[in-house]
């Protein structure tokens, strides 16, 4: 149920030909290999893929949190609000992280420090980026916690993370994420550890927050259900590259890359009886030893000789909908 967002053409984030490689004992791992996308104001972009497809490394690259060594952003641009994040120094990045671009990660257990209270941690996030007097820091923190619907926020500020349930902790992580009104909020599988009904609460909360502040969201996920519910546009990743990119309806109604189509056909449906799921045989190739040509060729149901010779270019399927497949050329 993607929301009909007002068409807004103002671009907040632009990623151009980003490449992040890791040097390992097996050779160079091209975790992210030349991806480009942009993100408009108030829009939600979903980056979907299986584990090892490079979606988490994309997220870390956007935050410039790639562990170096072994990883390195080899080339590309990440333009946020006029600044190229790839060129910025660690000091300058410190000012941007959390205030312009923020992150919510999947494990609420490890993303909160167990020895500080919830209040301390939210206040800390505010103090780093905003120069406001001490008293109003607390008030601001309280406001943020209320915004993420934490009941009895005033008394809960004195609680430690272990005193809260998983859903509540995830809300606190969300509160820290939005505390400085970032322009871009990246959510990396924010609901995988939550129960279905708690997940529904949390997703609704994220949507409401987005509507209030007009921020842009990037959802990193493996779940097409989350994409269908939350996203306006989708980038499907496979083996370090974006294989298909388009609006959520383009992707669901007219999947043009065989991988996207196969993946969608292999997911069981809530609303219809399916007799037999399509099953993609084999498994993703190891990133340190990618085949020449299209990396999906070995599993592709419609593979051609050409596919094993060179990687296909991006072809336009319709306006704003591209896919990298030889079938489309």
């Amino acid at each position, binding site marked *: 149920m993607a929301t009909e967002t007002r068409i807004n053409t103002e671009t907040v984030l632009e990623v151009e030909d980003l490449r992040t490689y890791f040097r390992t004992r097996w050779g160079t791992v091209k975790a992210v290999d030349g991806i480009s996308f942009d993100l408009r104001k108030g829009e939600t972009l979903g980056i979907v893929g299986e584990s090892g497809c490079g979606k988490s490394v994309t997220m870390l690259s956007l935050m410039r949190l790639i562990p170096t*060594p072994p990883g390195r952003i080899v080339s590309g641009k990440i333009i946020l609000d006029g600044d190229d994040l790839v060129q910025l120094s660690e000091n300058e990045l410190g000012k941007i992280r959390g205030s312009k671009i923020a992150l919510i990660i999947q494990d609420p257990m490890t993303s909160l420090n167990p020895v500080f209270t919830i209040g301390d941690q939210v206040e800390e996030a505010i103090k780093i980026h905003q120069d406001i007097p001490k008293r109003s820091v607390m008030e601001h923190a309280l406001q943020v916690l209320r915004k993420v619907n934490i009941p009895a926020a005033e008394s809960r500020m004195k609680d430690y993370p272990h005193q809260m349930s998983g859903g509540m902790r995830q809300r606190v992580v969300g509160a820290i994420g939005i505390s400085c009104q970032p322009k871009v909020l990246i959510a990396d599988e924010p609901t995988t550890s939550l129960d279905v009904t708690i997940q529904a609460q949390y997703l609704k909360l994220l949507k409401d927050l987005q509507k209030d502040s007009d921020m842009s969201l990037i959802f990193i996920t493996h779940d097409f259900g989350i994409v269908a519910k939350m996203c306006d546009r989708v980038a499907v990743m496979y083996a370090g590259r974006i294989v298909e990119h388009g609006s959520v309806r383009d992707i669901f109604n007219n999947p043009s890359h065989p991988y996207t189509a196969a993946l969608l056909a292999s997911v069981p449906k809530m609303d219809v009886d399916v007799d037999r799921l399509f099953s993609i045989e084999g498994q993703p190739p190891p990133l340190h030893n990618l085949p020449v040509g299209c990396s999906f060729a070995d599993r592709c149901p419609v593979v051609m000789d050409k596919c094993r010779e060179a990687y296909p270019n991006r072809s336009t399927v319709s306006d704003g909908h591209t896919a990298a497949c030889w079938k489309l050329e």
Partner: protein
Amino acid sequence: MAADLSGIIIAPPTTMARAAGAYRKFRRWPVIPLFLLGLVVFAGLFAPLISPHNPEKGELKDRNIPPAWLGGETALKLVVERLSINDRGSQVTLRDALVINPNAKVGDQLVIVTKPAGSTKFLLGTDHLGRDVLSRIIYGARISLIVSIVTLGVGGSIGVVLGLAAGYYGGWVDETLMRLVDIKLAIPLILIALVLVITLGQSLAIIVTVLCLFIWPRFARQVRGEVLQLKNMDYVSLAKVSGASTARILFIHIFPGTINTLIVVATLQVGIVILLESTLSFLGAGVPPPTPAWGSMVADGRDKLAGGVWWISTFPGLAIMLTVVSLNLFGDWLRDKLDPRLRQME
């Protein structure tokens, strides 16, 4: 979040990191500790074949001979009938002088050897009873080896069995065993050992018993911790679902998972056992003389240190130190190698 990065090994480009890489390469094999430990084991195994002298018998005339590379000392002394009180240091009696030179008469000046020179016959010198220090160190290695192996075998097995039981059954079994471990921590081991030796007499058996009492809790605790994790693995539940007996689960599914930890614990414990055995021997509560043990050798030589006879204590002391340090280095290396999870511990 960085799940994709797990298992990626670093190949460092900066200078600092390159130095670290070289160091890591050096660390890959603990060459020096392994060599020293090999030497100790070899000495222990083949002591009768390689030791140049009988370690328990010496000639009194050969006593306090320094290591081979040290020279002796001589002095010019006046041969007199009777030593005078004040000039004793520069005089020698006629009777003694005749032993060295049959032609000596009163009033002659004679060159007398005041301290003997080292000789290649006794590479590391001799002790106050004329026994060869090197041979005693070689045989001492054998004692250390026997004590370590027996203690580890007996104490370790007790610890492993109790640890398995405590971890697997939990409840009162666990509670009782862990309180026993606490009690052990509160008992002054050396005092107990001294009391036992006074009442029962010195013997190797007593020392091994005391050491077993000392080390089993460490094994029990480590194994228990490991079992607590392993017993919740799904494959253990699945074995139960298939009808596996408790013995099968413990010895086929759980025990093999603790072996890596056990090897590490055992290596580090050997160092402690050798150190303790030496301490007890030093205090006279260890291996009964004249059997050579490193600890009692240090004790033998300690009152000669002031007289410049330093080699009796120093060489066995060095042997203890090098062995224990090697064991600890080797143990640390093994720990890193076998189980990266343990790196944070202790």
